[in-house]
């Protein structure tokens, strides 16, 4: 049945794309339906500067986007340009050879990009960059300023501070954290949005250097601390609370804090235009510990290796890597553009950019989503078990390390 649907989709797609294309007419695919108008605006300014090239922006349903895109690319009916995901999601498309490798020769602006952003769009096997990264997302704690002010609270400096302020909110009859963990991926968000500073940069570096694995005390004790805070300060029955309900608890002002990503900011503002948002990096154990947010990159703009208008497509990708586009992207879409030198008018974005100065990568997505079982699958399920009291942080460390050893070389014994 599912294969059937995909087939019908592919057939329809093929019919749509069989329409004759002009020499310099580019198509670009995306999963960001909500951004269509904005992109059409960006495209207009590109077209004005590059007469003779037109770009058509088409969007597809987000959850099946990778499947739709790779099906079309495999069938030779793919677009000239496509938004592609990052990390493992990029490799899925790039490893089949569908994407054109980009270099500083074809896209000179890439040389100024943050190496971590480029790494997100690089395939590990050949070390080549396959897309121009477009945005970063940050996992941290978002709070309701009005609630904090009314209760005389300030951003916490240490883990004890965080617990104390959560207790104050609870005593005042406000739900401290809105989060629920019934939606699997929210477990990962909560774990690293709250726990990154506790895990410390040192742990991250040791992990990457192969000197530590997930049984490391810095990692497991962070999980324990997160679970304790969840048990006491998340809503009653939070293990049965799904993601949209949690968002509503926060945006309606029933809860003071929300552990989540920078992508939530615009969302909360839409749901409740009057809400005043603040954000902080969840603290480490002591006030002296570096406060870290978990940072990752969303995706990038790739070029179809088999496209018929590759030259024009490269031109467009160069535009997408330009400061002019980056600035327009940040201003219009309220996202943290990865283009170097972009400044943020929106005070919230400026604050996010500021917090990004102290970060570690959003661990499982950035490094452990390249094989099965992925680190994300494991941590999501294991944290749900921990929240339900069915496992211990130490056991999670073991499960992660042995589970990932199935494909992650440094863990193989």
């Amino acid at each position, binding site marked *: 049945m599912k294969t*059937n649907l995909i087939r019908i989709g592919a057939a329809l797609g093929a019919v749509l794309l069989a329409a004759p294309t002009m020499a310099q007419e580019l198509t670009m695919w995306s999963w960001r339906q909500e951004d269509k108008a904005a992109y059409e605006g960006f495209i207009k300014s590109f077209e004005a500067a590059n007469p003779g090239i037109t770009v058509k922006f088409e969007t597809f349903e987000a959850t099946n986007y990778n*499947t739709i895109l790779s099906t079309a690319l495999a069938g030779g009916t793919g677009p000239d340009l496509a938004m592609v995901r990052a990390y493992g999601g990029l490799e899925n498309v790039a490893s089949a050879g569908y994407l054109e490798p980009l270099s500083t020769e074809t896209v000179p602006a890439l040389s100024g990009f943050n190496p971590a952003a480029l790494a997100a769009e690089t395939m590990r096997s050949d070390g080549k960059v396959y897309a121009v990264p477009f945005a970063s997302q940050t996992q941290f704690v978002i709070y309701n300023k009005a609630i904090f002010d009314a209760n005389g609270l300030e951003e916490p400096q240490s883990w004890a501070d965080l617990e104390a302020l959560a207790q104050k909110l609870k005593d005042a009859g406000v739900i401290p954290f809105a989060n629920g963990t019934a939606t699997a*991926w929210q477990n*990962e968000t909560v774990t690293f949005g709250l726990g990154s500073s506790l895990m410390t940069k040192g742990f991250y570096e040791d992990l990457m250097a192969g000197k530590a694995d997930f049984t490391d005390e810095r990692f497991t004790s962070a999980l324990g601390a997160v679970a304790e805070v969840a048990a006491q300060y998340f809503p009653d029955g939070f293990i*049965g609370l799904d993601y949209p309900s949690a968002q509503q608890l926060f945006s309606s002002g029933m809860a003071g804090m929300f552990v989540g990503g920078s992508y939530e900011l615009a969302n909360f503002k839409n749901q409740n235009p009057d809400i005043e948002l603040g954000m902080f990096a969840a603290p480490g154990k002591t006030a002296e510990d570096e406060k870290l947010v978990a940072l990752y990159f969303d995706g990038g703009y790739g070029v179809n290796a088999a496209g018929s208008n590759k030259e024009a497509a490269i031109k467009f990708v160069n535009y997408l890597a330009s400061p002019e586009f980056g600035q327009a992207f940040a201003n219009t879409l309220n996202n943290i553009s990865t283009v170097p030198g972009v400044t943020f008018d929106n005070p919230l974005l400026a604050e996010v950019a500021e917090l990004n100065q102290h970060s570690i990568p959003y661990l499982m997505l950035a490094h452990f989503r390249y094989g099965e079982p992925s680190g994300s699958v494991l941590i999501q*399920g294991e944290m749900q*078990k921990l929240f339900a009291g069915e496992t211990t942080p130490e056991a999670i460390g073991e499960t992660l390390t042995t589970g990932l050893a199935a494909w992650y070389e440094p863990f193989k014994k």
Partner: protein
Amino acid sequence: MPKLRMTGRGLWITALIVPPLAFVALFVVYPIISAFAYAFFDWQGLKRGAFVGLDNFHTVLFVEPYRSWTLNAFKNNIIVFFALMVLQNGLGFILAYALWRELPGARFHRIAVFLPVVLSTIIVAYLFKLFYHPLFGVVNITLRNVGLGWMAQPWLGQSGTALWSIIAAQAWHMVGFPTLVFLAGMQRIPGEILDAVRMETESEWVKISKIVWPLVAPSATIVFTLLFVGAFNWFELPYIMGGLDGSPFGSTDVLGLYFYRTAFGNVSAGQQDFGLGSALAVLIFLFIAVIASVITVRLRAREIQI
């Protein structure tokens, strides 16, 4: 030798048969065969790699972590099947009997029982998700209001209650279907037989077990087989209420979700693997086809012709 000539009638028949046949071949037979074929290859994204024989089947059945995922999903499907056999088909039979006996309010209930079946699965899923909401859900609020607050649960968040909560939603949604089929079967029972029974006994139990149940056997064959196929293809409700991962930690994972996740990936957690996904699809298909045939043949043999 007679010449093979297309007569007008033959042409007409051909013209009627070929389009649907082509349609079925293209959208049913071809995908099934290609899924069989896909299962024997290694896949990089959507690019077909080397022929690997039975490796994919071996992986999903015997290699960790796939082995425990497969077993867990399969176990949950079995629970779903037996639970729905009781809650959906069993209750359906009782409801049908009550409606058939025209108890007071039968007219109203005939419609009321069938109404949820008409609702879209999506609506039912979201509705029940709201019912089970830990803070504002009707279930927990009702329990608290009648003094049973200690029974209030995060229904969809606990491994012990999540699957059963979804099964309950499914049973509520579909109970009208077996009811309708059983009721139709009961209404076909000839009046003379019933009159004859009435002469012998007043016992409802004897009537049900000796007359009604054997005579609605064809209906039972239909609903049992459909329930079996439905339970092992279960997807929509757990997908919406538990999520693609069978949250929490696989408690609501069923073969349908597991297959989808494996073949098409999961944006927020894992990667796609078409080969393993196809192998799973083939195994699920074979399992359903074989067992459903056995059920049908066995139950057919039990049916009585009047």
